[in-house]
């Protein structure tokens, strides 16, 4: 364990989207040259423009580009990079990739391949945690590769059960199965989704704990084998196991439980000599019992809320530790203040069962002002590709207390506009205004309950303003097109509805 001391001057970011933009920002602040890689559809993507060098690594589908470790390493060598930052997703939890990076004489900014292998394989991690005396959710002791076996184990455990990708995270390849009739289709789709997302279709099964809280501890391991923890994140606002809102601190636990979880999390990280940023996920029940769920051996999507409340830059810490420096923080230096909430903005249509909604962004308006942080991977004039995750931005608010952060985030969402594609912006706002969320009394099933309840209509005043705006726009269009082309059929509405008008009209 421990990494050789070596100053890092140039880092290749093996990722795309908002996380690649975010990593590049810290690198530039550290006077380290950020290097991007990009697929054929990402030439003008913000992450490429956020870097000082960039190399193409293949066609749009991720298995032919962002998941190709060999292409990434080749680009890093060509660039003369010292290190590779994997971001999250893609190659970030691929132990073979870590070994290949190190074999190529490069530094991998993250844990060792060994720590990743133990903690990254959910089944091996469970065994490790059990040996360390940490409570775990009941489940299969290993991967299951045929549907008959899955059904047998599920019958023994009792439904409902959860299928999970062994290599997974972020809800990809995960299916909640209520009874045996759903198993065939769930098993097929979980494996296929896992294969696409992680290049590994291994799945395992766990007993489902109904309406639990998902509370995770941010840990950070040093080269001396010691770890610190930086508070928790509450990730219980989920839809189909995808986190939608995250916040810190969590209202589901008290300070005593929080500290106990933090200590357990550090022990777990130290057990595998974990180096760098990692996250120990727990499920908690209503009695504040906590069960080890999994460890994410990478920088987490929702890391900004921790950064806002702890006043640290986790990416900077990752780079420092990777170049052999001691941990930037002692446990007693880590002081958590205020409250931070993050929402994930997705290119998806909540009114159509959250169908992905890729497409051209005509204009992007992002919020500003006190206490707001936006990590965004798209821009005006950019085509959101159909090939990757639909998350296009994370919006975070910090305030001295929870309700202040919540109001701030609602305000920020009201200022936001993503023109040209459908997003879940209003859905997020509704969630922040949901009674259960306001009161902090929510669980992982709250969103589904809200969805069933339906929508409130805007006030008459707002409707009037909308009608007037629409009529004024229509009137202006009609007078413009009458001047330009007298034979216009615009009265049918088809002219201005076509994409041709939308983009051509800008000329």
């Amino acid at each position, binding site marked *: 364990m421990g990494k050789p001391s070596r100053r890092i001057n140039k880092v290749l970011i093996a990722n795309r989207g908002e996380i690649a933009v975010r990593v590049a920002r810290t690198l530039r602040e550290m006077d380290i040259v950020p290097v991007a890689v990009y697929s054929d559809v990402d030439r003008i993507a913000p992450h490429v423009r956020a870097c000082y060098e960039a190399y193409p690594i293949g066609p749009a589908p991720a298995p032919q580009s962002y998941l190709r470790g060999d292409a990434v390493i080749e680009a890093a060598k060509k660039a003369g990079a010292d290190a590779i930052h994997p971001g999250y997703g893609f190659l970030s939890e691929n132990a073979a990739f870590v070994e290949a990076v190190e074999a190529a004489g490069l530094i991998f900014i993250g844990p060792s391949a060994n720590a990743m292998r133990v903690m990254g394989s959910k089944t091996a991690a469970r065994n490790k945690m059990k040996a360390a005396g940490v409570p775990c959710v009941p489940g299969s002791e290993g991967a299951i590769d045929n549907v008959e076996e899955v059904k047998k184990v599920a019958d023994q455990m009792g439904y409902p059960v959860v299928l999970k990708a062994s290599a997974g995270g972020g809800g990809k390849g995960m299916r909640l199965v209520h009874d045996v009739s759903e198993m065939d289709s769930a098993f097929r789709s979980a494996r296929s*989704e896992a294969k696409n997302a992680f290049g590994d279709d291994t799945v395992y099964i766990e007993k489902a704990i109904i309406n639990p809280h998902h509370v995770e501890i941010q840990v950070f391991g040093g080269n001396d084998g010691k770890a610190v923890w930086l508070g928790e994140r509450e990730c219980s606002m989920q839809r189909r196991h995808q986190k939608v809102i995250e916040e810190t601190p969590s209202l589901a636990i008290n300070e005593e439980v929080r500290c106990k979880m933090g200590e357990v999390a550090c022990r777990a990280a130290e057990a595998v000599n974990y180096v760098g940023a990692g996250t120990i996920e727990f499920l908690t029940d209503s009695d504040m019992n906590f069960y080890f769920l999994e460890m994410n051996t990478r920088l987490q999507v929702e890391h900004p809320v921790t950064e806002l409340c702890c006043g640290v830059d986790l990416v900077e810490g990752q780079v420092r530790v990777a170049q052999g420096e001691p941990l930037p923080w002692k446990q007693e230096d880590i002081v958590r203040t205020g409250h931070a909430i993050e929402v994930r903005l997705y290119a998806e249509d909540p009114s159509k069962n959250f169908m992905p909604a890729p497409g051209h962004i005509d204009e992007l308006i992002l919020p500003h002002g006190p206490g707001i942080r936006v990590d965004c991977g798209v821009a005006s004039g950019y085509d959101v590709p159909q090939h990757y995750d639909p998350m296009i931005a994370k919006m975070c608010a910090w305030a001295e207390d929870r309700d202040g952060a919540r109001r701030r985030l609602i305000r920020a969402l009201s200022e936001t506009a993503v023109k040209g594609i459908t997003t879940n912006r209003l859905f997020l706002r509704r969630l922040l205004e949901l009674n259960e969320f306001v009161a902090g009394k929510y669980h992982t099933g709250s969103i589904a309950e809200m969805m069933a309840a339906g929508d409130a209509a805007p006030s008459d005043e707002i409707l*009037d303003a909308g009608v*007037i705006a629409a009529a004024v726009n229509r009137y202006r269009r009609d007078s413009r097109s009458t001047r330009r082309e007298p034979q216009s059929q615009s009265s049918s509405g088809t002219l201005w509805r076509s994409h041709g008008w939308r983009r051509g009209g800008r000329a």
Partner: protein
Amino acid sequence: MNYVALVGEQKRQVELTELEDGKFRVVIDGRELFVDARAVADTTLSLMIDGQVYNIESELDPAGHGENFSIRGEVVNVEVLDLRSMQLRQAKTLTGGVDGPAEIAAPMPGKIVAILVEEGQQVEEGQGLVVVEAMKMENELKSPRAGVVKNLTAQKDATVESGLVLCVIE
């Protein structure tokens, strides 16, 4: 100008008269309002109605139904028709059948990862037909009703644009 504005399920009669540049008299269902409307950019409008300021960001509805207006954190979808196209639309709705063949179209650009039925196959309502993948999520397109699969043009691994008809249920 006289328009009909469709707002959700509601229909509003709108009469709009430009008094001078940027100033309008608007009558909505008989209520008279005086409006100062300034275009800040192509899709940004600043409205003043009786001292109230509304900053309005608009976009063409990606689903093709009029425009979406973002106003004070809310979004209102409005489709404006002139009287003639309103009449045309009503006539169409009256003659259009509901029992005709159901076209199954790709709801988003993506890749076809599985075809679950065959040409000529009898399917039940809710039965999965084609699986389309976009943004790492798989979406199973289900049959809207019982019938027979016809014109199955979907091909496995093909990339499809939004709206492309993949098969028809008759």
